[in-house]
């Protein structure tokens, strides 16, 4: 691999990301899958970096899942998105940050469609007025929230208590970066680093001390793929995609996987359990899996947050081997305690996938 070749592409695909004042919209599903990630994003931006990030409880889904599952037409998704933009306009913001990759792709696609077909934008403005009596301005800047963490990656590195380095060997951790398909595959110029060799997560890993692995199935879908999973008959296809990725990355012995999509960490994490239980195959060391983390969780870890406050106990694959490698201290007794040390009870452990 020629690193300079990738650097050339990365320099071609940089996007303007404003420094401050963002209107933030959450994902439909991330709070259920990895509940601390979005909280951690807000905490890092507001408390660690001192940024103004505004959130409005009245925002809804962007309609992306229904749109990509072909259950609503694009005009419906556009009207939902128009309402989100109206909320941003009412709040006095013009920079829009989406927590979800599919939302980001959805917003990008809609803005590009309106650019190409202004008459459609006019129609959607009419539909929004009729349905909600709202008007909107289009965002001046649109970003995925991983774009923001990418932008602030060096500031986070300066404040970090840990680096992505094996404390025993001093070697950088080997990190697989997995980008959600809707981040830049549809519009390469809208993602940091483009579509083929995205840099948004690789840049974080490099800044925080790790080494990025480029493996053959790097670009492949995590297996979620909406209709692959939501249509029940297709679930084995979802699983086979994930299996293909793990078989491909296995020779590189990854220490962890970092993701920026709501679905990817969930499927890469949970399907490891299914593969282990059905095939007896595990991909981490000594019978463990490969920990799969969101970029906010990784940022939180290097900044020194308690792993259990980051919600790592809700991952199927145990994060402890990773924490031990980095040298992050944790109390095993607190793993399954919630707020105010409330006992959350211990889950049943898998047969083949080793967990604590």
């Amino acid at each position, binding site marked *: *691999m*020629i690193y300079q070749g990738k650097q050339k592409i990365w320099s071609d695909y940089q996007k303007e990301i404003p420094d401050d004042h963002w209107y933030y919209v959450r994902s439909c599903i991330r709070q259920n899958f990895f509940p601390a990630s979005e909280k951690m994003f807000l905490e890092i931006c507001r408390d660690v970096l001192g940024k103004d990030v505004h959130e409005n409880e009245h925002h809804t889904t962007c309609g992306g899942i229904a749109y990509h599952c072909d259950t609503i037409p694009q005009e419906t998704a556009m009207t939902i998105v128009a309402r989100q933009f109206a909320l941003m306009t009412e709040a006095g913001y013009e920079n829009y940050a989406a927590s979800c990759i599919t939302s980001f792709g959805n917003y990008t696609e809609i803005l590009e469609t309106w650019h190409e077909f202004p008459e459609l934008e006019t129609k959607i403005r009419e539909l929004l007025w009729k349905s909600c009596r709202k008007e909107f301005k289009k965002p001046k800047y649109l970003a995925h929230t991983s774009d923001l963490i990418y932008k602030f990656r060096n500031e986070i590195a300066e404040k970090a208590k840990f680096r992505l380095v094996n404390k025993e060997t001093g070697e950088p951790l080997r990190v697989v970066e997995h980008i959600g398909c809707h981040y830049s595959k549809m519009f390469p110029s809208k993602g940091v680093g483009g579509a083929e060799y995205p840099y948004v997560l690789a840049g974080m890993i490099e800044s925080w001390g790790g080494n990025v692995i480029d*493996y053959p199935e*790097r*670009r492949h879908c995590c297996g979620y793929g909406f209709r692959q999973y939501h249509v029940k008959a297709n679930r084995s296809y979802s699983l086979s995609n994930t299996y293909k990725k793990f078989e491909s990355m296995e020779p590189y012995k990854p220490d962890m996987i970092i993701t920026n999509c709501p679905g990817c960490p969930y499927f890469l994490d949970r399907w490891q359990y299914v593969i282990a239980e059905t095939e007896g195959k595990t991909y981490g060391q000594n019978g463990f899996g490969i920990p799969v983390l969101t970029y906010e969780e990784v940022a939180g870890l290097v900044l020194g947050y308690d792993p259990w406050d980051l919600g790592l106990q809700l991952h199927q694959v145990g994060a402890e081997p990773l924490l031990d490698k980095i040298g992050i201290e944790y109390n095993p007794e607190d793993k399954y305690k919630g707020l105010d040390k409330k006992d959350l009870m211990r889950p049943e452990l898998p047969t083949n996938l080793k967990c604590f």
Partner: protein
Amino acid sequence: MKEIVVIIGGGIAGLEAASQLLKLGYSPIIVEKSDRLGGHVARWNRLFPDMTPAQDLVSELIASSKDANIFLNTEISFINRLKDSYNIMLSNGISIISKYILYTTGFRLFEAQKKEEYGYGIYNQVITNADLEHWFNTNKDDRISGKDIKSIGFVHCVGSRDEKARNSQCSKVCCITAIKQAIELKEKYPEAEIYCFYMDLRLFGKKFEDFYTKAQRDHGIHFIRGRVSEVSENINGQVIVKAEDTLAGKPLKVTLDLLVLMSGMVCNPDSTKSASMLSLPIDSDGFLKSSDNVFHITSSPRKGIYYAGACTGPKTVPETLAEARSAVLEIHSTITGEAR
């Protein structure tokens, strides 16, 4: 006084034109940007379909045009139109007045790294057709020399017939070049499996079809109709190619020791730069636009300006040489007609 004809470009079209102009008693001046003559062909090893050494052709052309005035390392600074002639200012400070300018500015190879999914410049074992010819000529390329090569792929139409790359034109020679190079590699690596990924094979020229048959029948080269979707690298440094076999109706994945990208022909930006000085029209494919594409392909809409070779679109070597002769004949007819 001998009539001066300025030839912009010292590739095979420019050299052949100079040679023919000399025979007719004119005074050609070749202006060449680089430090050598022969253009792309001078970097090629052998030419289809007879496997003629490219250097033989270039040497012969240089020898037959040696009496022309030749400026190497020289660019066109500007051209302006006078009453019935043109003033051509060169980057070396020399100014030439001539009634006749022949554009033989040729083409530029498509920059393969623009097709990011193919990994040129990212993965070591991905090379271009030009890189391979360089290796045929010099035997110097760490990506090939001394390597245990057991599987090789060729990707046709890299940057050609590709709306995404903004080049809708067919580059004409890539199909037969890929077949030629595949046979040459098979002769060097008899045990290697070789795959050609094509959209459709455009084998229009003399003996081209024979070449294709020979590649399959005598050399066992596999032809797969389908475009490559992505290229990646495995832990051993081999490239993994994903493609679609549209005849079998299946996706396929193959691990290769070497992948050759058939970079197509795109317009030479030097052509359009100097053409803009004379407001010469550019065609929709970016190449210089002839008066028409049937009867006057070597003529421009401007009096005294002529074209030959790949400056008006992808051409084979024989077509290029024929156009050079045709353009010279047209210039000669014009000069003699004016003299009468």
